[in-house]
């Protein structure tokens, strides 16, 4: 991280590595590549859901209730006769949208609190640290449940609740990065040149914090998806008939003895995405996280 010119410190890093480094990364990490392809397939399915899905995800067909997997309905139908494959495909939309937007909210909140805690000193820093500690004292799901209690249910509410519940870990990592950057020589040099403080923060501290934060964001998308589908599974997140995986798993729970595919199909869709994302996240972290890279 101790590059001579901080203005150019972060952006060129991936670019400079790109021509040789990136291609070899896919070859060096076959699991990563496979997982990335799986995750990309989910994104494609979500984007083109209306073209890919064979049925309308919320169209009920009472003549075709709780059918097992067949040629017409490859993943079967649920207790309202809705096609599970179509619902799983549309569910990818909700999972990815909720996951990405809530992580961005969490990252933005974490950036603000983390910067404030890292740059301030004395009692203010101490108080902010205890604030972060107290956010971290509650597991993200329970924090999200508390926010849902205030906000109510729905897709937008879930995004906000999950986002707010993720601020703690982001704030902690941002603060740790700020602490490392602010003792660097180029910060001292900038201050000696009597560049205004906020400008130093904007031009010299922020770029060095944003990149590790971006790595964190990609890693934590899967956590956000898991928490949001957990909320739906508990019956307090997204409301029916939205094709949300957590909701579908919960609906199928009551029929598990004679229609196990109702829970299993959306469940496997969720599990596969989470496993793929966590392999992708591990790969990205090992390649790009400055702390791990230095150790390697």
């Amino acid at each position, binding site marked *: 991280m101790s590059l001579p010119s901080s203005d150019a410190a972060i952006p060129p890093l991936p670019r400079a590595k790109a021509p040789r480094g990136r291609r070899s990364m896919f070859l060096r990490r076959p699991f990563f590549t496979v997982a990335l392809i799986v995750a990309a397939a989910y994104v494609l399915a979500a984007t083109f859901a209306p073209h890919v899905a064979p049925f309308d995800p919320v169209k009920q067909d009472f003549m075709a209730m709780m059918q097992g997997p067949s040629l017409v309905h490859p993943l079967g139908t649920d207790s309202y006769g809705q096609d599970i494959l179509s619902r799983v495909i549309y569910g990818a939309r909700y999972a990815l949208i909720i996951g990405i937007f809530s992580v961005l909210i969490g990252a933005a909140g974490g950036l603000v609190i983390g910067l404030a805690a890292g740059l301030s000193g004395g009692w203010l820093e101490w108080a902010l640290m205890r604030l972060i500690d107290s956010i971290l004292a509650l*597991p*993200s799901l329970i924090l999200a449940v508390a926010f849902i209690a205030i906000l109510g249910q729905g897709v937008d509410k879930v995004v906000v609740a999950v986002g707010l519940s993720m601020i703690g870990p982001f704030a902690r990592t941002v603060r740790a990065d700020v602490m490392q950057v602010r003792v660097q020589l180029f910060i001292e040099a900038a201050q000696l040149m009597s560049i205004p403080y906020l400008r130093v923060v904007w031009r010299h501290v922020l770029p060095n914090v944003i990149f590790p934060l971006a790595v964190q964001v990609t890693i934590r998308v899967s956590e956000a998806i898991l928490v949001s589908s957990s909320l739906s599974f*508990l019956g307090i997140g997204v409301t029916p008939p939205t094709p949300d995986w957590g909701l579908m798993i919960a609906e199928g729970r009551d029929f598990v003895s004679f229609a196990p595919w109702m829970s299993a199909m959306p469940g496997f869709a969720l599990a596969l995405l989470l496993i793929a994302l*966590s392999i992708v996240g591990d790969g990205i972290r090992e390649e790009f996280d400055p702390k791990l890279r230095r150790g390697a």
Partner: protein
Amino acid sequence: MLRQALGKIAQTLVVLFFVSVASFGLLKLAPGDPIQIMLGSEYSQESYEQLTAQLGLDQPFLAQYADWALRFVQGDWGTSYVARTDIYTYAFKEALPVTLTLASFSLAFAILIGVPLGVISAVKKDTAFDAGSAVLALTGTAFPSFLLGILLIWFFAVKLQLFPVMGYISPWQDFWGGIYHMILPGLTLSTYFIAMITRLTRATLIEVMEQPYIAAARARGEPSWRVIWVHGVRNIAMPLVTILGLQLGTLLQGTVLTETVFNLPGIGQMLTSAVLGREYMVVQAGVMMTATLFIGVNLLVDLSYPFLDPRLRARK
């Protein structure tokens, strides 16, 4: 050392204070005017103000907080209208023991399975066993627990009819019945932790086995099992306890989901029904209990280091 411990305790109290202010604020942020709800649709301005004063809602925020905190510490947590009981009895005496039973059962499961798996993986590094347990560990950490629970119910309870589908029997009243009902939920919840402990034990033990005191033990001619299980495993206690303390939150949020899958009347079910019934005081109680548990356990973890690692004691 005492000074350090006192500092830690002070820090903990401040965090607890912040959490309690936040969960008190939860009530204030909740939609709806409590006075209006109590009085119904028709009331006079006079009776409105009278009730406001009577409940102390005209006081400044901090005074209201102090009043609430004092009552909370004394076990006066309000009344739940949906469950028709005193919240303290409902949350603390009925729901919390269920959650704690499930959590401690899963934790015991996770340590008993995860540590040996990790030790064997570390000793047999780069073999098929190691690769297999690495794949299992990765799947285990990423697999959603509620799906796993449903699959376990389908396979063990519906197909094989080995275990009850759901329900809870307190192991304090009927020990074997309680254990029997806890096996599937415990397995569901502990999978993530088995995976995590396996990964951690493997990574830490590989490092420990390269230390000079391990070479010294081998040079003294101690049998291999003693070197690994006594000299090696002892030294993974500290990182293990640290991680378990920090992961307690994950354990508690896992119980919330597992309880819903298996219909266990714990904090998870309490919170879910409270959110659906808009009972903010019950949510508040759940939040306070979870946070206090997490903060308390992590304080204990911090304070336990000198007991786990004699080197920390000697340095002082």
